[in-house]
């Protein structure tokens, strides 16, 4: 499967996002959904993009795919294999989208065409990226893809309609479609959130296996820090459109620095907890992204907040080796003189 002509690995990652901003202009208001996001995805690695609804994780990924509505204004830089995608003409973007970078969404039922057999939908995806392939060859390849994503009884399922499949099987079909053009980067946007717990685990294991076998990079977008702990090589935590903490997974979980990451982690129910134990829950809600933000966006909810946090936003910088965070009062460290 890894027959892609892999470009020589430069000093940059496969994907380099730098100072990305996405503004939505709506009814005279400007909503800054992504506010200066910078990160890289190395080849064949999994980066977990973690945060709550409205933190900008989905919007920033749709910006990579140029799938945002016209009311969105994208600035900054998104370089894929060194090529700038921001401002790229739609005609040229079409050669990247799907074939170089593919995406799997949360709701497979809505992404599939209910009136077409799944075999036809996978074959169509193959034709879209390689118009020279014969019908028979495309069909063989579709069955191969169905086997790759471990759809049981692939040949028989070829003629099934989406409604005849379970949610987990439909998500496997979506993954097969996404893999049709052998993309170098797959973006999975809450791809398992709507699925049952055992199915979620099966699909995550499948994605990890495919990622390793195909040498594909994976951006895993999720609200679940637990999922990132199990499946990501590196984690980027986002809050209010910004990156707030980023590190290799082990390092992040061993030395959480940003109080927001700590709060996310402490809010997860743990099997070890005795029944009826209270969860640590920070009060309040994420800020309204339409109003001008001064200071650290997490400061109104932060247990370690000081005056400085309300007035000055901390920079998102590498403060320990491979570990970036944006906080004046990082957890587990003595407060540096301010």
């Amino acid at each position, binding site marked *: 499967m890894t027959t892609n002509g892999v470009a020589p690995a430069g000093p940059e990652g496969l994907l380099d996002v730098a100072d990305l901003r996405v503004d939505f202009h709506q009814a005279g208001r400007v909503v800054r959904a992504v506010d200066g996001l910078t990160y890289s995805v190395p080849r064949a690695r999994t980066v977990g993009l973690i945060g709550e609804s409205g933190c900008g994780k989905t919007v920033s990924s749709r910006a990579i795919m140029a799938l945002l509505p016209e009311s969105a204004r994208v600035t900054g830089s998104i370089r894929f294999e060194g090529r700038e995608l921001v401002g790229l003409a739609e005609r040229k973007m079409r050669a990247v989208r799907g074939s170089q970078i593919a995406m799997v969404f949360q709701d497979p039922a809505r992404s599939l065409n209910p009136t077409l057999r799944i075999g036809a939908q996978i074959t169509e995806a193959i034709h879209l990226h390689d118009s020279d392939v014969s019908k028979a060859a495309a069909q063989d390849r579709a069955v191969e893809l169905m086997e790759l994503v471990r759809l049981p009884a692939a040949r028989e399922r070829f003629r099934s309609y989406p409604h005849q499949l379970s949610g987990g099987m439909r998500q496997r079909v979506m993954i097969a479609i996404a893999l049709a053009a052998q993309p170098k980067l797959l973006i999975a946007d809450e791809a398992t959130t709507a699925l049952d717990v*055992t199915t979620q685990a099966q699909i995550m294991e499948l994605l990890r296996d495919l990622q390793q076998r195909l040498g594909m990079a994976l951006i895993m977008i999720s609200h679940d820090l637990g999922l990132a*702990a*199990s499946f990501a090589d590196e984690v980027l935590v986002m809050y209010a459109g910004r990156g707030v903490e980023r590190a290799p997974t082990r390092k992040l979980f061993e030395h959480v620095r940003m109080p927001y990451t700590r*709060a996310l982690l402490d809010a*997860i*129910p743990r099997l070890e*907890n005795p029944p*009826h134990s209270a969860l640590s*829950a920070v009060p309040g809600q994420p800020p309204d992204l339409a109003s001008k933000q001064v200071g650290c966006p997490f400061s109104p909810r932060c247990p370690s907040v000081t005056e400085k946090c309300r007035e000055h936003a901390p920079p998102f910088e590498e403060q320990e080796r491979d570990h970036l965070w944006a906080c004046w009062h990082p957890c587990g460290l003595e407060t540096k003189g301010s």
Partner: protein
Amino acid sequence: MGVLASLRTGDQGVVNEPLLEVSNLVQEFTVRDRGGVKAGTVHAVSEVSLELAAGETLGLVGETGSGKSTLARAILQAPPPKSGSVRLRGVELVGLKRARLTEARRQVQMVFQDPFGSLDPKWRVRDLVEEPLISFKVGDRTGRRRRVDELLDLVGLDPARFGARRPRELSGGQAQRVAIARALALDPALIICDEPVSSLDVLIRAQVLNLLERLRTELGLAYLFIAHDLALVKQVSDRVAVMYLGKLVEIGPAQSLYREPLHPYTVALLASIPSPDPAVARRPVAETIRGELPSPIDPPSGCRFRTRCPRAQDVCATVEPPLRKLADGHLTACHFPVGREDAATPDPGALEPAPLPGGARGRLA
């Protein structure tokens, strides 16, 4: 409310009588093809029995198609079960006349996954919370308004700030608080929470879970807490029941169910929970469960989990495992309970590849 209050104070004296007693509950639905001809029967809930004491939280876990929400609705007689019994404080609800059923149902309220779906978008928060009081003719207008303020305070919403808002002016967490205030209005003894925090973000989820815990201790509420996430259910429950394809497969104290899960399906659910600690080695879920959920129209013979079970033997296809007590208050329906080789079905045929003799059923009974 006076009657309920007196019943509640009497709880100490009637510890042995459960608040809710579900016995052999069966719920089935007929599926018809396009011509209206009966095409099959969905066995949504099959012979489920469980009890819930006053002030107790029973967690109910299972995945899509396990029948957990159908069971909740059957308890509320919406719609009534096909057969079986639902007793609330000793009163049989199945077959109860409409007026008496309405009165009985006051004691059992429900909170759903999507708070916006249960709140009329045109109404204001104050009116939404007052509505159950009006429909049950509780108090006069002044008294009701005072009660609404009390209820909003109780769920952590400032009445002055939120009272006049409409649902669209609320966040998901705030809307769920309004739904909880509505559920509390008639002073119920039991709240059935059906995936109450599944649609909420992690931090808001923790806030709402903590609210439900506080209400439980302050008001002495019992919960039937339904969710697909075993870690979440375990956090809030005294006991946990696990359902699979319409069957109750395991029930027991929350701690022992987690420490010593007996049913292979419970083991699979536990293995599916991503640990928020990357240092913990995950057991691949493929080792604990395989394949897809079978159709509830034609569930597998014998044990319904056997088609996906790594421990399944021949006996599992022919003999349905009864619910057996293997530890204090801890029951499972499995021929080969995990970690309990002493309790494996005593059948030589099951240990060797040979098919089992027909006498197995007699030996089990």
